[in-house]
């Protein structure tokens, strides 16, 4: 290798390092500004919109001494910008104030209820991906066929149906009429004293401890809400998969693979789907984020004790600290998934690496 070539290679290497550093820097800037934006909006909602934020937090029956103390604790005598600074500092420590309803710190409440939501959303995404991806692939391969039409209609209804209504109808059919599933809750009362959760994911906990009766009961409680969320994500995942696959199937390498004499299933599942995999990871991550949000309404219908139910219960009791804490919690996870799926896309896609 000549000197010139060596230098050129070194130059390429350092240019690559600079590119990676600058994209990392960009990522950090985006992450920080987005989180600050989220906190600015919740600050605005909690402190600026209410005429008296103390009343919004404590309700109108609190004694005057408590009101005065809270006013000072919240720093309401300080200028806006200083208040926001303190607000951000507290939020970074995970301090969202105290819930009026449960009298616990909001953060400890959130920690208690979040696993239930994660369990529900995860199972929903698994259902959505396991059915949605093959459905989308088939729809793309047999474009215009019956299965394509069916996939399209199923997807369109998934985009158009009010999930809480579908949940109520599901309860009528599967709980009241057919009695296939258990009543709206997370577990039967029977198991309340015999079952101790470890991770907070009941299905997993029951399996670890070998309590298969608990596992079966937990399954009977989660299956319908998870299937509903799964349907929502199926609608999105299958539609996007179809579009990615159509894109791949029109590429020249597919023609080359056919010319080489590869079997059709090898071409579809081995070549085309593998190339569509990168954007699909993003889509599945995004649909997971959407399910976390979609769980708010689903949990309300199924009395599922997750963060959605926590937020709506707090709403009904005008418990603003809890509402905003829950909003920040869902918002943070939502933003994190958004950002990381974007980053993952850049890392996984060989074209962005070469470029």
């Amino acid at each position, binding site marked *: 290798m000549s000197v010139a070539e060596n230098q050129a290679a070194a130059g390429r290497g350092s240019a690559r390092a600079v590119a990676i550093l600058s994209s990392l820097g960009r990522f950090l800037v985006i992450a920080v500004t987005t989180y600050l934006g989220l906190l600015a*909006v919740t600050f605005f909602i909690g402190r600026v919109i209410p005429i008296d934020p103390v009343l919004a937090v404590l309700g109108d029956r609190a004694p005057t001494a408590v009101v005065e103390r809270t006013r000072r604790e919240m720093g309401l005598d300080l200028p806006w910008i200083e208040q926001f600074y303190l607000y951000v500092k507290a939020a970074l420590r995970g301090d969202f104030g105290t819930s009026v309803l449960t009298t616990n710190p909001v953060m400890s409440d959130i920690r208690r209820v979040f696993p239930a939501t994660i369990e529900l959303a995860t199972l929903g995404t698994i259902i959505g991906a396991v059915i949605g991806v093959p459905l989308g692939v088939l729809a793309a391969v047999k474009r215009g066929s019956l299965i394509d039409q069916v996939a399209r209609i199923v997807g*369109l209804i998934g*985009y158009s149906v009010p999930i809480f209504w*579908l949940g109520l109808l599901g309860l009528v059919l599967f709980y009241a009429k057919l009695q296939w599933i258990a009543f709206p809750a997370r577990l039967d009362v029977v198991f309340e004293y015999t079952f101790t959760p470890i991770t907070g994911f009941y299905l997993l906990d029951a399996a670890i401890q070998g309590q298969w009766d608990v596992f079966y009961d937990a399954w009977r409680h989660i299956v319908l809400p998870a299937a509903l969320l799964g349907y929502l994500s199926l609608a999105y995942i299958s539609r996007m998969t179809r579009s990615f696959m159509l894109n791949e199937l029109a590429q020249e390498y597919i023609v080359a693979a056919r010319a080489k004499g590869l079997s059709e299933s090898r071409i579809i599942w081995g070549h085309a789907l593998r190339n569509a995999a990168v954007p699909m990871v993003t889509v599945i991550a995004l649909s997971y984020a959407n399910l976390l*949000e979609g769980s708010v309404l689903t949990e309300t219908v199924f009395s599922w004790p997750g963060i959605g139910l926590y937020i709506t219960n707090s709403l009904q009791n005008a418990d603003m600290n809890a509402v905003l804490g829950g909003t920040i919690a869902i*918002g943070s996870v*939502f933003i994190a998934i958004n950002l990381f799926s974007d980053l993952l896309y850049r890392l996984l896609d060989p074209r962005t690496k070469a470029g």
Partner: protein
Amino acid sequence: MSAETIQSRREWLLSDRPASRLQARLGRAYVAWRRFSANRLALVGMLIIIALLVVAAFADVLAPYSPTVGDLKNARLLPPGAAHWFGTDDLGRDIYSRIVYGARWTLYVVILVAIIAAPIGLLVGTIAGYAGGWTDTILMRITDIFLAFPKLVLALAFVAALGPGIENAVLAIAITSWPPYARIARAETLTVRNSDYIKAVQLMGASPFRIVLRHIMPLCISSLIIRVTLDMAGIILTAAGLGFLGLGAQPPLPEWGAMIASGRRFILDQWWVAAAPGAAILIVSLGFNLLGDGLRDALDPRSGDQ
């Protein structure tokens, strides 16, 4: 009208060399309409939306009973039948009549959200795209921040602070739904910003304000309309969700989401109270989705059926 005159009219519309601006416009509209009407699902969507408009306009004629005052003595929780097509609710009100009047509230919400959110997005996007530089960076950063938020949860928090009510629900939805419009408007602005006709207007001494308002915004309208139509279903679902949680329309307003919430207590025995308004929501959002898909395929052939 003979077959010949129809034939010649079509030729006039499809002419390669339109003699007037009107002919060119009508010709383009005709081509778009032919593409749109070839799509059967899109036509179904359009029919649903026309039906919604008709029902909302003639609610007084179409509804046999009052939407707010019921017959508590004789007509509580009646199953669907000849006198009450969709049954009655716990206050003895005719559910069919309430759904008919509810069409007005659905339209009220989607139209208000559209006329608040779309202009905000249009303004932010065109200014960012035309000005470029720091203005662009800052405006788009704000847009992306809002785009990264969970919409429903944020709308919930807004309504929690503003207080429940249909106007506040509209405001909360509008605040969370403008960012996609800003992105679209910016993208459209960037494609025309350096074109010759903009340079010509600049040379004639037009102010940036005038250029954005008169020469860039009109070009963003068609892609914006497509996007707004596609978003309508989401807006309806969010509004219904807020209504279901008791944060949107307040009783006795016949809003569909709130109607489902009130039927929830009787869901296991009197399922029809909640079933009918939910079906109405499903049909109308399906209509907007089909119409939006059709419009996109007809007006924006580039996107194909992806």
